[in-house]
């Protein structure tokens, strides 16, 4: 077993003793893929899709253009764990150790205060789910994907894998073959869900793989804000989180998807996220990556309808032995479409952040407008930040803006703040918070407070 420097400041690094109902043997095979499908009593088309995806996963090479993934041991991972045998809609009905876990993370508390609905996934499956009655009456569906496949098979079949086919990349294929859990959201025409829906993802086992699959459909003129949070215990053996998220934003609808990713530093976080925006639709990704060992994630918006708008606002924080390779993809297929990417990355103690972006404006996407701004903040000499922007602009009638800055917290700035009586930690934290402010102000207050607290913890870790 390799030894690792553990960060004891990580508040969510605790684990509880597992009393799982079922734990698959570690490693992956076609047999195991079939077993997962069988345990879930899935229709044949889904089983077939899983098997095809698995075949593709086997033959597809590891992506070699981004972070170093050579240390992932696919055979050392447990791909499926069922932690309880029934899903509940009351926290008290959860097994004690699972309920305690969510209490410590603060999910039930948040639900009471400001959420429309909550889904909590523990290991491979969603163990708790609740949506406000009023939303149910309006026809809003918020459930886990396994339930959705049983209750709404036609809708799932119509959309599943159409935006992100398994052949998109090796990890989309892996997800498609062993997916379990995740959220299914359907918002009917014209319905505006005022308070956010939240999904909470927790990994408790070590050397585990979580492969949730999320599908969101916002029908014409509707609105929904979906928030996901994620944490895991600190273990010496690495875990893998590889999700696929597909979002369909219909004419005039708006979806906001906020992520506060705070996995422990032994997690590989390799996620494919893509949205399709129809005419005059708005898709906003707000993506905050603080935790994990390696993250590779590039939320995408396919702007398919005239007047559609896509945004990615992201924050990446990389400390010791972390590599955040994150970015955005905006593909303009229709005229008068708009995209905006604002990326803020912070590196400290040898951490590495990369912005990797693709902007593509098709010949027919006339009068489109693109704005990309990526700023990097380096806290010391050992840290690193890279920018890999790709722009493919296929017409001359669009407005393209790209800005990039790299800033260091120099001695001069630190001295200035310290000369006013701020400690070094307070001074650095103030800089980092000032730096990410344009993105943080888009996040609900409860989360931005948490985000600032997490950043302060990271900063204290770097000085102490």
């Amino acid at each position, binding site marked *: 077993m390799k030894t690792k420097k553990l960060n004891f400041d990580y508040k969510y690094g605790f684990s509880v003793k597992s009393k799982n109902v079922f734990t698959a043997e570690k490693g992956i095979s076609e047999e195991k893929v079939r077993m997962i499908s069988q345990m879930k009593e899935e229709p044949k088309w889904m089983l077939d899709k899983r098997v095809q995806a698995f075949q593709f996963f086997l033959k597809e090479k590891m992506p070699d253009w981004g972070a170093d993934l050579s240390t992932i041991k696919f055979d050392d991972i447990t791909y499926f764990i069922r932690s309880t045998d029934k899903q509940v809609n009351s926290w008290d009905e959860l097994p004690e150790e699972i309920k305690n876990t969510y209490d410590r993370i603060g999910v039930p508390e948040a639900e009471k205060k400001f959420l429309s609905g909550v889904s909590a996934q523990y290991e491979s499956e969603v163990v708790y789910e609740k949506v406000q009655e009023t939303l149910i009456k309006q026809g809003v569906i918020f459930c886990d994907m396994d339930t959705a496949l049983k209750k709404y098979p036609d809708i799932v079949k119509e959309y599943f894998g159409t935006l992100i086919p398994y052949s998109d990349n090796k990890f989309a294929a892996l997800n498609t073959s062993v997916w379990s859990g995740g959220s299914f959201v359907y918002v009917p025409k014209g319905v505006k869900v005022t308070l956010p829906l939240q999904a909470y993802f927790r990994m408790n086992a070590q050397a585990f793989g979580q492969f949730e699959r999320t599908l969101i459909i916002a029908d014409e003129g509707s609105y929904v804000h979906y928030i996901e949070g994620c944490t895991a215990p600190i273990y010496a053996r690495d875990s893998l989180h590889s999700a696929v998220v597909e979002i369909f934003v219909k004419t005039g609808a708006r979806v906001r998807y906020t992520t506060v990713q705070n996995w422990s530093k032994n997690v590989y976080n390799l996620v494919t996220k893509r949205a399709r925006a129809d005419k005059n639709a708005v898709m906003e990704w707000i993506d905050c990556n603080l935790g994990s060992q390696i993250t590779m994630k590039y939320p995408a918006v396919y702007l398919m309808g005239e007047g559609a708008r896509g945004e990615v606002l992201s924050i990446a924080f990389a400390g010791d032995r972390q590599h955040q390779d994150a970015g955005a993809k905006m593909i303009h297929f229709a005229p008068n479409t708009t995209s905006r990417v604002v990326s803020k990355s912070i590196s400290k103690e040898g951490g590495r952040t990369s912005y990797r972006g693709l902007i593509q404006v098709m010949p027919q996407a006339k009068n489109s407008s693109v704005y990309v701004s990526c700023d990097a903040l380096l806290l010391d000499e050992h840290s690193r930040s890279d920018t890999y922007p790709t722009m493919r602009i296929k017409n001359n009638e669009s407005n393209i803006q790209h800005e990039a800055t790299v800033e260091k917290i120099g001695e001069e700035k630190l001295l200035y703040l310290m000369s006013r009586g701020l400690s070094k930690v307070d*001074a650095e934290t103030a800089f980092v918070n000032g730096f990410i402010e344009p993105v943080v102000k888009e996040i609900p207050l409860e989360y931005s407070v948490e985000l600032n607290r997490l950043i302060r913890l990271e900063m204290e870790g770097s000085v102490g």
Partner: protein
Amino acid sequence: MLSLHNIKVKVGEKEIITDFSYQFEKNKIYAIMGPNGSGKSTLVQSIIGNPLYTLSKKSSIEFSSKKITNLSPDKRAQLGIGITFQTPIALQGISVFQLLRLALKNVDVVKLYEDIERLAKELKINKELIDRPLNEGASGGERKKLEVLQMAILNPSIIFFDEIDTGVDIDSLKTIFTFLKKYRNDKTFVFITHYSKIFAYLKPDEVLVMKQGKLAATGGREMIQKIEKKGYEAF
């Protein structure tokens, strides 16, 4: 209140201050004058604890009978040493309000904001500037005024004004000094400058002349005339 003993300062390998001893007293106004490169700013930076400046082992700084030679800049500031910088930097994402709130920790934030607003008005600082990131889009004069405003809120017992007049037009300079007179109380002011023009507004009690890293002469305010007439050559 602030005693400097055998101060020797290096930047890298270069010795800038070769020997400096002096005692600053409470409730007095000082002028530290000298030609460019005589070590005036280096002295101030050493007093506030700028880590770029290395003091020799024998150097010793005492403030209110406490040895502060090895304290970090924040600790010195908390004890009551203040500075207005020669070239105040712009801070991305941090307004003067946010900065002062962090500096004062358990302060009543509403009162703090009102105090800032009131002082800004007295200093004729455009209201917009106090809500914006500090010094972003501010002129030289506005930056210096914002430095003075910070000192008025933080209220240190000794303040070093490093070239308070550079980049400041005559009207702003007048505003600044009218303000300083009003808020001085029993504070010690130390003005670092190579021009004597600011002493038309506020007369120093003591004048220190620095040359080539040494304290070349000290005296009363009559020294200023001597400098005006003969320049630093006379010392």
